[in-house]
């Protein structure tokens, strides 16, 4: 399939095949999940030496583990001998990863091996292999690059992938707003124990492009807004937000979301929240005062959204991470993690935990309706006739402008616009075309590339 014909950036449409076709799905595993930076887990899931947590990168199972020297590694969870899934537990602690099939054993312990994941034991090594098996050659496959970003672990299979912080670009400022302590300290967050995992019959991109900044949520979430989840007891499902909340997207990187127009920290309102829970409300008030003091003279960056391709996060209510793992063109396995300040009092963590669980996940009164809509849309887009008709992303098309305060981002002053979905799909097409990293990072031009339409271009076209 000609990728370029599938996403019409200039006209704001995209083919339904992107969301249902099997061959495109297979291509995504190669071109996107084998190359992009992916969220793997959180360092708090492997606090001690030899701890491991089994995660996913695309369809591949991976082991996140901490070695005896304290270093974190991400390794492919498949024995090099016959491909057996080496580690069948969701988490645990082991010095040697021993295969249940033929007992090939691997270690990350620097005292046993030179390279983490090397083979340490092979039954019959002397007698049957005659000592000739190259144990260094047949170690577990490590990811090509890995970073620990304020406690979150990210990895890529592509040795040529751009450095993570370049890949994130200005979106990193928003990710920080989720991961940093409420009192303004860098990092300082952790995840609550327990990852909600569930399968929904939808294409993974519905979730990615929903969280990238679909703000027309009044319809999807009408019922929860009517019954109310607001932790201060008012209307809606969260505390009232300060003004200046809008959609921002990064056309060169594919990330985007909803956030606040950056402004001096002193100008960012910090109203009290969580009024129904006095202890939690007081905690946030203390943190807000400390945040202002600590960051005085700086700029306030805050937002939520999707980091291309399949990780979405929310920085405040509810403060969470969700990863959209592909299972098939029409099925996704969602993994939800809940973020809190690591040193918050237990009573505060408990209040937040309750709020998060009633809001998000398959039992969440907000997320249920999203899941329903994505599943219905996937199904009703699969028919031979339905596939012929593209989706429409024309809302706000041609009204986006660069935002000087937020590096690399564009916006149109509204929360309700589909610029971000189109930006995400444009990035999807760039990866799917097999562009190299120089092209992906826009260090070299690509012939015939269609730029993201900005207001200045449409004004020039109409001669205004």
């Amino acid at each position, binding site marked *: 399939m000609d990728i370029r014909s599938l996403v019409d950036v200039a006209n704001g449409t995209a083919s339904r095949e992107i969301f249902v076709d099997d061959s495109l799905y297979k291509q995504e595993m190669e071109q996107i999940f084998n190359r992009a930076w992916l969220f793997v887990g959180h360092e708090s899931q492997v606090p001690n030496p030899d701890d491991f947590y089994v995660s996913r990168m695309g369809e591949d199972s991976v082991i996140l583990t901490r070695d005896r020297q304290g270093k974190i590694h991400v390794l492919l969870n498949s024995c090099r001998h016959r491909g057996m899934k080496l580690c069948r537990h969701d988490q*645990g602690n082991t010095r040697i990863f021993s295969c249940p099939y033929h007992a090939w054993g691997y270690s990350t312990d620097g005292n046993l091996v030179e390279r983490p994941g090397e083979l340490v034991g092979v039954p019959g090594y002397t007698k049957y292999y005659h000592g000739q098996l190259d144990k260094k050659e047949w170690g577990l496959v490590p990811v090509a690059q890995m970073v620990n970003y304020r406690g979150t672990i990210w990895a890529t299979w592509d040795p040529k992938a751009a450095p993570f912080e370049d890949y994130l670009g200005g979106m990193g400022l928003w990710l920080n707003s989720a991961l940093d302590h409420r009192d303004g300290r860098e990092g300082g967050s952790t995840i609550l*124990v327990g990852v909600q995992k*569930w399968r929904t019959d939808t294409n993974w991109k519905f979730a990615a492009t929903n969280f990238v900044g679909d703000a027309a949520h009044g319809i999807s979430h009408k019922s*929860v807004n009517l019954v109310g989840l607001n932790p201060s007891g008012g209307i809606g499902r969260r505390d009232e937000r300060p003004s200046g909340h809008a959609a921002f997207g990064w056309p060169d990187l594919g990330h985007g979301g909803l956030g606040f127009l950056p402004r001096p920290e002193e100008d960012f309102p910090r109203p009290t929240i969580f009024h129904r829970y006095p202890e939690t409300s007081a905690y946030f008030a203390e943190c807000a005062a400390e945040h202002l003091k600590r960051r005085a003279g700086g700029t306030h960056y805050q937002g939520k959204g999707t980091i291309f391709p399949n990780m979405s996060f929310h920085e405040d209510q509810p403060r969470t991470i969700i990863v959209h793992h592909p299972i098939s063109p029409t099925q996704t396995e969602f993994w939800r993690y809940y973020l809190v300040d690591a040193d918050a009092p237990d009573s505060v963590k408990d209040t937040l935990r*309750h709020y998060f669980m009633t809001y998000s996940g*398959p039992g969440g009164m907000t997320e249920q309706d999203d*899941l*329903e809509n994505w599943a219905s849309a996937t199904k009703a887009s699969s028919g031979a006739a339905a596939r012929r008709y593209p989706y429409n992303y024309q809302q706000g098309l041609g009204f986006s402008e660069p935002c000087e305060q937020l590096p690399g981002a564009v916006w149109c002053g509204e929360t309700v616009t589909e610029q971000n979905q189109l930006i995400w799909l444009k990035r999807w097409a760039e990866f799917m075309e097999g562009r190299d990293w120089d092209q992906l990072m826009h260090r070299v031009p690509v012939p015939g590339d269609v730029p993201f339409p900005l207001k200045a271009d449409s004004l020039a076209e109409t001669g205004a």
Partner: protein
Amino acid sequence: MTAGPAGQAMRELRPEIEDFLYLEADLLDTRRFEEWLALFSEDAHYRMPLVRNLAVKQIAGEHLTDPLDVSWFDEGKTTLATRVAQIRTGVHWAEEPLSRTTHFVSNVRVVGTAVTADGTLEANVRSKFLVYRNRNSDEEDKVFGTREDLLRRHGESWLIARRTLYIGQSVLLSNNLSFLI
């Protein structure tokens, strides 16, 4: 099975408690959700923990039940009432169209009784459940598990004071949990 007079007393309670649990199941399946809510005490605690795949030697911790662990649900009566109210809005898209559920309850055992300081009888009850959900034309979900209930004597009947639902799925194989378990 507990021997002696205590065991005898618990076995005598069982038919009555079975009837109570069957009534509860029927209220859910006939969508009499407000009457179902009335079966819970005001201080009720309703939790459905996550389960993980762990090594045999760590299996005691497979269900995440520490107070600060994430669950599928972990809430009180107020939140349950909010869920019912959401279904009643008619614009809760995961329940519009509504699910058709069938709640099976079996293997009911009264495993303990106690009398509280104010003289109220409480019973610890274990049972198995299967919730079948059918929705739209071809949507099917099945959730199997074990229930641990704390029932509190209330007039001639009972109130559910605590319910813990242990399910077998570590990855939930349902589009969502919009139906009441």
